[in-house]
C-alpha cells in the first residue's frame, strides 16, 4: 500500500514506475538499415558508408578493412572506376557528391604503403578448391572471396602476368603499373590462392577436367575479340579495331600515323584512345557517339557511359565530340580513308523496353579524316568454351553467374558487364553463391530498400565543399605519368565527414537529444542493430520526433501492428 508522504513530497526519478509506452497507439520507431544509394549503385558491392563511418572516426586501417571486405583492389578501382556510387550519392543535390573514388584510392595506396594485412585467414589445407579461368579483376576477386570464405582457389591464366584488361588496355596515365602491381602482388600472395600462368583454356586445361576436379569452375576469360564493324562500303586494309589498337599501343608505345582521326564508340576504351591519340600528336581527334554528353537536360540513360572525369579531361584536351551520331560509311580513295559519312541518330524506346537506334535521313555529312577507329565492343574468344558461348558471350542465367552444375561465369564475358568494378563484384557474388550451395542453400539477394535523398533530413548536414584531386596540367600530360593525383590524408578525413550515412546510423545523437521522453537510450557498445541507440518502448509515446529529426532516415515510424507481426 502506498503511504502518503508528509506534504506529499516525491522521491527522485520515481516516474520510471509510470510506463508511458502504452500511450503509443499507432506507430513506433524502428531502426531500418536501408541501402545507401552509393552501396546500391556500387557494382563491386562495396558498402561505402560503412568504411566512411570508420574514417569519420579517424580509423583509416579499419576503413580499408571494411572496404576490402567487398573489393580487394581499391587502389585499382580508386583509379579506373567510373564510380556510379558518386553519381548516385544523395549529397550531389546538397553541395556535390562525395569524392568516394578519390578516398577509395587513398585507402588502397595507404594499405600498400603500410602493408595492412587483408582480413583473411588461410583456408584449411583440405578446403574445397575452385578453379578460375582468367586472372583479370573478376578472376582475382573471385579467388580472394573464395579464400575469405574458407575455400581455396586456383587461377588458370593464359598470359604471363595477372591483371587482364587492367594491364593490357588501361593507360598508365590512369593506372600506373606500380599501383597495379603492388595490389595484385599482395592479392596473389594470399594463402590459398594459386595462380598458374600460361595456362590456356582449350590448350592446357579444359572446362570439363577442371569441373571434375574442383568444387566449381569459374569462367572469367574477359572479352578479347572485337565485334565486326558494320559500315556501308569498303573497309581499309589497315583497319584497326579500338581495343586491339590500345593494347598494341600499351605494348609498343606507338600509333599508326594520322592527322585527323575519328574514334567511333562510347566507352572508356574510346575515350582512352582519343586522349592518347591526341597526346601522340594527332591534330584532330573526334569522338562520334550515339550517346550524349552529360548536361542538365540530358536523360541519364542517354549519357555517354564513360568515367565522367575522363570525359571531362578529354574535352579539356580538345578532343572533339559529335553526339547522337554514328559513322555510316567510309569515304575511300583507293585503300586510303579520306573521310567519314556521319549521320545523326537517336536512341528511342523500342519493343521490349530496349532502345532502338533511329538515324535521320538527310542529316548525312562527310567529315575529312584519314583514320576511323571503331570502338564498339568486344566479345568472348570461344576457344575452349565449346557450346558455352551464345551470341558472343557466356550469358549466364542469373546474377550469380550460374552456367550449369558447378559452372559459373563472371566479368565481361557474361555479356552484361563492362567495368572492372562489375567484374570484382561478380567475383564476390559467384563465390557467395558457391559458398551457399556448398552449404546446401541458395544465395540470398540483398532485398533492402534504397534510401533516397527525399528520405533524409538535410537540415543537419553542414555544407562542406567536395575535395578536389590534383591534376597534371594538360601540357605536362604524357603517356606514363598518372594524370590525377592523390587527395592526401587530410582531405580524405575532411571528405569522410561529408558522408551523409544515408539509411544508416550516423551516431549523431539526434534521436537521443530530441526525445522528450528520454526513451532513447545511448549505449557504449554497439547495439545489436549496429547503432548506439536503443528505444525504450516502456516510455516511448510514439511522437515520431526521432524519426523526423534523424538525418539519415535510419529511424522510421512503423505501424504498431505490423511491428508485432513482423
Amino acid at each position, binding site marked *: 500500500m502506498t503511504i502518503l508522504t508528509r506534504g506529499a513530497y516525491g522521491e527522485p526519478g520515481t*516516474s520510471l514506475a509510470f510506463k508511458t509506452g502504452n*500511450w503509443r497507439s499507432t506507430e513506433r520507431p524502428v531502426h531500418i538499415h536501408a541501402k545507401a544509394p552509393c552501396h546500391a549503385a556500387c557494382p563491386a558491392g562495396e558498402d561505402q558508408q560503412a568504411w566512411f563511418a570508420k574514417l*569519420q572516426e579517424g580509423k583509416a586501417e579499419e576503413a580499408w578493412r571494411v572496404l576490402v571486405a567487398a573489393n580487394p583492389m581499391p587502389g585499382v578501382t580508386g583509379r579506373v572506376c567510373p564510380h556510379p556510387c558518386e553519381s548516385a550519392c544523395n549529397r550531389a543535390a546538397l553541395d556535390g557528391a562525395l569524392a568516394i573514388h578519390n578516398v577509395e584510392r587513398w585507402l588502397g595506396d595507404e594499405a600498400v604503403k603500410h602493408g595492412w594485412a587483408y582480413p583473411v585467414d588461410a583456408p584449411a589445407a583440405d578446403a574445397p578448391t575452385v578453379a578460375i579461368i582468367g586472372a583479370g579483376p573478376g578472376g582475382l576477386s573471385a579467388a580472394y572471396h573464395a579464400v575469405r570464405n574458407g575455400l581455396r582457389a586456383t587461377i588458370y591464366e593464359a598470359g604471363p602476368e595477372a591483371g587482364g584488361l587492367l594491364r593490357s588496355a588501361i593507360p598508365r596515365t590512369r593506372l600506373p603499373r606500380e599501383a597495379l602491381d603492388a595490389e595484385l602482388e599482395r592479392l596473389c600472395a594470399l594463402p590459398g590462392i594459386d595462380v598458374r600462368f600460361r595456362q590456356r583454356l582449350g590448350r592446357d586445361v579444359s572446362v570439363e577436367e577442371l569441373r571434375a576436379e574442383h568444387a566449381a569452375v569459374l569462367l572469367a576469360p574477359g572479352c578479347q575479340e572485337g565485334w565486326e564493324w558494320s559500315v556501308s562500303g569498303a573497309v581499309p586494309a589497315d583497319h584497326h579495331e579500338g581495343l586491339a589498337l590500345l593494347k598494341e599501343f600499351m605494348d609498343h608505345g606507338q600509333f599508326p600515323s594520322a592527322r585527323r582521326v575519328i574514334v567511333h564508340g562510347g566507352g572508356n576504351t574510346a575515350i582512352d584512345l582519343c586522349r592518347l591519340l591526341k597526346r601522340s600528336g594527332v591534330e584532330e581527334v573526334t569522338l562520334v557517339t550515339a550517346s550524349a554528353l552529360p548536361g542538365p537536360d540530358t536523360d541519364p540513360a542517354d549519357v555517354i557511359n564513360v568515367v565522367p572525369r575522363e570525359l571531362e579531361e578529354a574535352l579539356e584536351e580538345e578532343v572533339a565530340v559529335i553526339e547522337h551520331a554514328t559513322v555510316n560509311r567510309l569515304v575511300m580513295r583507293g585503300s586510303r580513308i579520306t573521310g567519314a559519312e556521319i549521320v545523326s541518330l537517336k536512341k528511342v524506346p523500342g519493343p521490349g523496353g530496349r532502345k532502338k537506334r533511329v538515324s535521320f535521313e538527310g542529316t548525312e555529312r562527310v567529315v575529312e579524316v584519314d583514320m576511323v577507329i571503331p570502338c564498339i565492343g568486344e566479345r568472348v574468344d570461344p576457344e575452349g568454351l565449346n557450346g558455352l558461348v551464345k551470341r558472343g558471350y557466356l550469358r549466364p542465367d542469373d546474377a550469380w553467374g550460374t552456367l550449369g552444375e558447378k559452372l559459373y561465369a563472371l566479368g565481361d564475358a557474361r555479356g552484361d558487364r563492362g567495368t572492372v568494378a562489375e567484374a570484382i563484384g561478380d567475383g564476390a557474388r559467384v563465390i557467395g553463391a558457391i559458398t551457399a550451395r556448398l552449404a546446401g542453400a541458395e544465395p540470398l539477394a540483398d532485398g533492402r530498400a534504397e534510401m533516397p535523398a527525399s528520405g533524409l533530413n538535410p537540415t543537419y548536414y553542414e555544407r562542406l565543399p567536395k575535395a578536389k584531386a590534383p591534376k597534371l596540367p594538360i601540357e605536362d600530360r604524357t603517356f606514363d605519368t598518372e594524370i590525377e593525383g592523390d587527395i592526401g590524408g587530410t582531405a580524405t578525413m575532411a571528405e569522410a565527414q561529408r558522408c551523409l550515412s544515408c539509411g544508416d546510423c550516423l551516431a549523431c545523437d539526434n534521436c537521443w537529444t530530441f526525445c522528450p521522453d528520454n526513451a532513447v537510450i545511448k549505449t557504449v557498445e554497439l547495439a545489436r542493430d549496429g547503432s548506439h541507440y536503443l528505444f525504450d518502448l516502456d516510455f516511448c509515446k510514439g*511522437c*515520431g520526433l526521432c524519426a523526423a529529426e534523424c538525418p539519415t532516415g535510419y529511424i522510421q515510424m512503423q505501424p504498431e501492428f505490423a511491428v508485432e507481426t513482423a
Partner: protein
Amino acid sequence: MVDDARLADLRRKFGRAPAAPSEPAPAKRTPREAQPRFRGLESGHRACQGCGEALAARLVVECAGPDVMIANATGCLEVFTTAWPESAWRVPWAHSLFENAAAVASGMEAAMKAKGRNTKVLAFGGDGGTYDIGFQALSGMLERYHNVLYVCYDNEAYMNTGIQRSSSTPHAATTTTSPAGKERMGKRHLKKDLLSIIAAHHIPYTASASVAFPQDLQRKVRHAMGIDGPAFLVVHSPCPLGWRHDSRLTIDVARKAVECGLFPLVELERGALTNVMPIREVRPVADYLKPQGRFAHLFSDDVRAQEERDHLQALADYNIQVYGLTGEGQDPADTGGAAAVGRSGRAPRGNDGAARRVS
C-alpha cells in the same frame, strides 16, 4: 568554489560519468543508468507526445544539473512531471504557485547564501507564469539581483488549462480565448517583447533559445550557470496540442520559427545586444505558419487572411532588421551551422557554438 567530492558523488548517483578515471565505475548498471549525461528529468513523465517543453526542460536540466535546485511555476511542466507519488525529477525541485516561481527561487537562493552553499537555483515557468501572472515576482527577483537562472518555456499560450491566449501568444494565432470568427482573426494583440523588458533590468545575461537548436540552448545554459547573478533564458518550446501540428514536427516547427525571423535567437548582456544566431537562409513566414492549425485561418479565402499573413511577415522582417539576423555567407554559428551534426553528435567542422559577436 565547487564542492568537487560532493559533485562527483552526485554524478555517480545520477548517471554522469565519473569525473576522474581513478574513480571506480559502479558495477552492473542498466543502459539507462549508464547514460553519458545527467538524467535530471527522467522518463515516465506525462507530457503529450512530442512535447517541446518536456524536451526543453530535459535539455536544460541535463546540462545544468546535478548541483541545482528548481522552483517551478504551476503549468504543464509541473503537472506532467510530478503526479504524486511519481516524480520525474532527479534534482531537488519545488512547485509552489503559478505566479511565484521567481520569488520562491529568490528564497532558495537567499537560503543557499545564508548557508554558504553553492547549489545554483533555477526557476522554471511557462509563458503564462513568466510573461503574465508571475511577471512582477520575476521583475523583483531580477532587480534584487538573485543568483538565479530563470528559464521560461515559451509555448505561447496557457496550455495547462487548455490553450488560452497569453501575452506571449503571437499575433493572429487562435486559442480558445482568441478564436477566429466572423469578427476576429485570432489574437488581436502582439506577442509581448519580454526580452527587452527583462534586459532593461540591466542583468548580466538575457537570451532566447529554441528546442530546435539544442547545442545552442545548452551553450546558453552553461553560460548562464557561470554567472553569479540573475540570468534569463526564454526557450521556444512548441506545443503540438496547442499549436495543432503533428507531434513529429515539434523540432521542425521550432526551427522554422527561428528561420523565418519570428523567434530570433539573441543574447543580451547588461541590456545590450551582444550576440545573435544569423539566419542562413531566411524562409517565408508562411513556411512556419502552414503546419500549424492555430494559423489555419490565415490560409482561408478570407480577405483578411492575406493581410494578417503579411502582418506576421512584416513582424518577422522587423525582427530580422532590428536584431540583424541576416547571415553573411556560411557561418558555423548561423542557423545552418548550429543545426549541423556529425558522427558522435559533433558537427563536422569546429562548430563549437562560438557565435557571431555583434559589434
